[in-house]
């Protein structure tokens, strides 16, 4: 290598750190750069020491309102546990289920929460694989939604069990009666897929957390430092550690995307493998996956907006991120429309008596309000609003749309589970499902747990992956082309 040709800065005029690069001297260019920084987090370079503080300050100081909220949510969690105990003692009959509606709100919650759990992985893994740079600050908030939604989803089949203490019969191990569980049954594909997805999501989130836990370890003292020291595992950020970290993240990203698709497909197979009107459909797999991503993206948007307002994360979460997420939600809404129409059209045209009965029930019968609300929330409202960038970047409007999407998707699951079961080929066994108090209380309690765990998590671990932001900031830049500054993405 010709050493002489390498210009090397001398100690006195050595290069400045990337966060101290001055604005261009030309006024026009300086103005352009200031504008670009305003819009784009990765160009708005600040000293990491300051950025660490932006993240850690809201984690340290909690308002009284936060603690009051915690107490209320903890009350909700206790209510859940108490009700669960009541249900375990008195039997599953305290629910509103009964022949023929044997699956109801617990299964609805299960499907809904698994759905919510999909967006986190999708945003952090798929957007990572596709190199969407705006994913950097939002990936962990999304992954955390996945973690807690999935843990609650995994609890629901247990709540649904009559004798919950027998759950270990799911393990591949012969029980007292010498029976092995049958892995040829959809009800065992489910725990297998959820175990894979849940454990790998935890590891995936943790892998990305390690460098940030190391940052917390470096900037705390006392007992908290000891806590972070354990979870940082002695991370120093050596080349070897980063190289292994990178490969592991790639393995997880590429591995967890098909697992994510498989999980919700298998959840849909819990339904579509049965010869039940409204369930037995070949499109259920992709239809459920799209629905899951749709509601999950909405849930992540809600979480991000709340985090931005309550934790003062305006530096990290900018209109560009909400714009990207909202566009993504619009695409998913249109895809959902397409799949739902597919799922609807074939039975409608075939016109089997039971399908016709079900359709009449939904379109002009007792369940019509639910059906129309679902269509309005899932199809009409996103299509009418999200095409506009003004609405996509207006957090209040976006929040309302995202909440309505949650309502719509929850109703969709209600229509699929208890409403479909209410009608079958034999009119003598038609039935009606009525929601009972214990189910309502358990549902509310689990959602309380989800929110409580989430807000406590955000106060213990940085909810923005700072190292990813620094990586982006160090590798992004502006390049002058003619008189214009062009956003230059990372060298990769």
């Amino acid at each position, binding site marked *: 290598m010709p050493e002489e040709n390498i210009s090397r800065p001398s100690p006195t005029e*050595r290069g400045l750190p990337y966060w101290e690069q001055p604005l261009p001297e030309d006024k026009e260019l300086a103005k352009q750069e200031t504008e670009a920084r305003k819009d784009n987090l990765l160009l708005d370079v600040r000293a990491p*020491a300051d950025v660490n503080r932006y993240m850690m300050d809201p984690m340290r100081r909690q308002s009284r309102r936060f603690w009051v909220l915690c107490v209320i949510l903890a009350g909700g969690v206790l209510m859940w546990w108490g009700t669960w105990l009541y249900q375990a003692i008195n039997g599953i009959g305290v629910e509103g289920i009964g022949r023929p509606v044997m699956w109801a709100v617990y299964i609805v919650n299960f499907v809904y929460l698994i759905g919510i759990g999909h967006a986190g992985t999708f945003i952090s893994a798929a957007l990572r694989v596709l190199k969407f740079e705006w994913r950097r600050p939002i990936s962990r908030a999304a992954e955390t939604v996945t973690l807690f939604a999935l843990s609650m989803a995994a609890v629901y089949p247990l709540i649904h069990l009559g004798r919950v203490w027998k759950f270990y019969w799911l393990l591949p191990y012969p029980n007292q009666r010498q029976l092995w569980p049958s892995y040829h049954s959809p009800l065992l594909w489910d725990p297998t897929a959820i*175990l*894979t997805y849940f*454990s*790998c999501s935890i590891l995936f989130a943790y892998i990305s957390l390690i460098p940030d836990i190391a940052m917390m370890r470096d900037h705390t003292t006392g007992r908290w430092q000891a806590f972070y020291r354990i979870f940082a595992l002695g991370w120093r*950020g050596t080349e070897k550690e980063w190289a292994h970290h990178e490969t592991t993240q790639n393995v997880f990203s590429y591995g967890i995307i098909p697992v994510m698709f498989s999980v919700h497909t298998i959840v849909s197979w819990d339904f579509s493998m049965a010869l039940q009107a409204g369930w037995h459909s070949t499109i259920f797999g992709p239809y459920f996956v799209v629905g899951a991503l749709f509601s999950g993206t909405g849930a992540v948007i809600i979480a991000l907006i709340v985090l931005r307002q309550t934790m003062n994360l305006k530096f990290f979460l900018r209109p560009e991120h909400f714009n990207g997420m909202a566009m993504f939600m619009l695409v998913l809404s249109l895809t959902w429309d397409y799949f739902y129409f597919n799922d609807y059209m074939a039975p409608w045209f075939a016109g089997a008596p039971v399908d016709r009965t079900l359709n009449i029930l939904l379109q002009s019968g007792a369940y019509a309000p639910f059906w129309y609300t679902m269509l309005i929330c899932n199809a009409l409202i996103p299509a009418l609003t999200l095409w506009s960038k003004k609405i996509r970047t207006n957090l209040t409007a976006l929040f309302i749309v995202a909440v309505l999407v949650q309502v719509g998707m929850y109703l969709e699951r209600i229509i699929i589970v208890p409403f479909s079961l209410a009608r079958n080929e034999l009119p003598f066994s038609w039935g009606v499902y009525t929601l009972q108090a214990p189910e309502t209380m358990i549902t509310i309690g689990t959602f309380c747990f989800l929110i409580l765990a989430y807000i406590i998590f955000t106060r213990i671990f940085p909810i923005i992956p700072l190292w990813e932001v620094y990586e982006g900031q160090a590798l992004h830049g502006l390049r002058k082309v003619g008189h214009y500054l062009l956003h230059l993405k990372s060298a990769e």
Partner: protein
Amino acid sequence: MADIHLLGLFNNLEAAADAIDRLHKQGTGDEKILVLSGSPYKPEMLGRPHYHGKVGLASLGGALLGMLLAAFLTVGIFLLYPLIQGGQPLIPIPPSLIVFFEVIMLGMMWAAFTSMLVLSGMPVFKAQPYDPRITEGYIGVQVTLDEKLSGQVEQAFNDAGTMGVKRQALAPAIDLNFRRFWGGGLAVLTIGAVITLLFFYDVLKINFPTNMNEQFSYGYEQGPRLAAPAESVPVQGPDLIAGEPASLPVPSSPNSLQRGKTLFGINCVMCHGAGGTGNGAVGAFFNPKPFNLTSSAVQNLQDNELFLVITQGFGVMPPAAENLSPEERWDVINYVRTLKK
């Protein structure tokens, strides 16, 4: 002389690259240099050789282990306990593929995580050369070499514009290996012991409560039988409920008996005979023979039971509900009562 660690801190990439170049020139090999940073930089940016990790290979190994586990779940279990399900073969391919996919992915990702920790030498609990400013964007260049050479390394760091140099003696290596050896060994032993115990459950026979034998249970047709609720419909039909749907019984009177006798002659006599003894002209062809209405078996029946028999028929006897109104049926019953021996 003992080896020591020297850690030079730099606040930008160029200075760190410069320091590494100077170290190379002094004859320090790449194996003695370690770069610490708060976000990932490509080693080539710092003039360092590319590092080839083995996490990918380990993931492949994990995937193979997962495949074995999946084979056990989908094939092994069904060979141990043949359970044919829903008209499928004993080992059906499509459901097995699902389990294979999930468990292979599980093995692959768990192996990636474990190998990331093992290959990076984590977790580390002993003191290492470090500075908290590394998570503030600073880049650390760590050199491990003989203490005698530390002067020239510090010189190189200073020439490159370091923000500070830290010295640290080599920590005794035993500490970590000690923990890892015993911690890991203990974990392996515990897991092994638990798994072994699980396979001897049939020998140990711990009497887990199964609940099935603890619940209240009744033998076949074991009494006492509970009385039917007051508002329930008797198995004989609604006619036995007082007053419904039959009209009120018609009291026995000469007029009623007269009507009863006439109706009996029209509807009953051909089988039961004029005297009601069961010797009617048609009844002779039946087997079993029509009932003898004068017998105590018939006469001991309640009025409403007779009413039911007339209304619904009995055995080969057809129902007379179409021919006789409820009042007429009561007339016939009154008449039948007079046939008593």
